[in-house]
């Protein structure tokens, strides 16, 4: 799969930036001429990953979130969301629906939403180092061209 366009964002792990980050990815993905549903699925998945980084990765302490979005010739989009937070001890357990370590009203469905709203999701995490979530979504529409 060839990467034909890329953008990177670094932003503070503040909850106000959840809206900003999904809007930025949606604007970038618009180059692929996605359907309303494809775009909505993508925004939802990005929102889940960024929220996880804020709530779980950094435990609502301030840190930086690193987001890379790549348009591929499949055509589709690949988004990598990385934090330098606490990491996940057991990724398989964290991926189970309804599992959550957060107090309050987190439904424990972040990974389930990402998985079902994207075509591919991978999670790499090292306790004490951080977590990287990679989301891939194929977008029908027209073949992507860099020009």
């Amino acid at each position: 799969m060839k990467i034909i366009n890329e953008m990177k964002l670094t932003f503070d792990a503040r909850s106000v930036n959840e809206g900003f980050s999904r809007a930025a990815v949606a604007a970038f993905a618009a180059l692929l001429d996605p359907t309303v549903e494809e775009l909505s699925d993508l925004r939802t998945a990005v929102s889940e990953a960024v929220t996880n980084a804020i709530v779980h990765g950094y435990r609502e302490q301030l840190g930086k979130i690193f987001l890379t979005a790549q348009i591929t010739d499949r055509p589709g989009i690949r988004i990598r969301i990385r934090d330098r937070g606490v990491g996940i001890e057991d990724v398989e357990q964290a991926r189970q629906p309804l599992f959550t370590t957060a107090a309050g009203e987190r439904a424990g469905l972040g990974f389930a939403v990402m998985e079902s709203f994207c075509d591919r999701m991978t999670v790499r995490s090292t306790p004490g180092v951080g977590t990287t979530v990679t989301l891939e979504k194929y977008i029908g529409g027209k073949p992507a061209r860099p020009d």
Partner: protein
Amino acid sequence: MSARIEYHQRAIRVFFDGEIDHHAAGLMRVGIDNAIMHKRPQLLVLDFGAVTFMDSSGIGLVMGRYKQMKAVGGSLRVENLSPAAYKVMKLAGMDKLGELHQKAVNH
């Protein structure tokens, strides 16, 4: 994101407007729970008609209010969900839990 709360005889209606995410849900929760505590309504209606985005934070928001309403012996209804918001709710099995109503579609 905003929530307008309307008081009827035995019911409270909440009209959400804008994007529901983790950030917004945290802000919405307190006002609604205060209204439930003071009015102890029989019915809480959450109207999603003007919601333009919702992630799994919306599930937590509804589940939390469902528990609050059970505690005061009332019930909860979710109305005017967009297809996208309904898809998120359905993933959580919320369609089995209570009353979810989608937005009427005009063909």
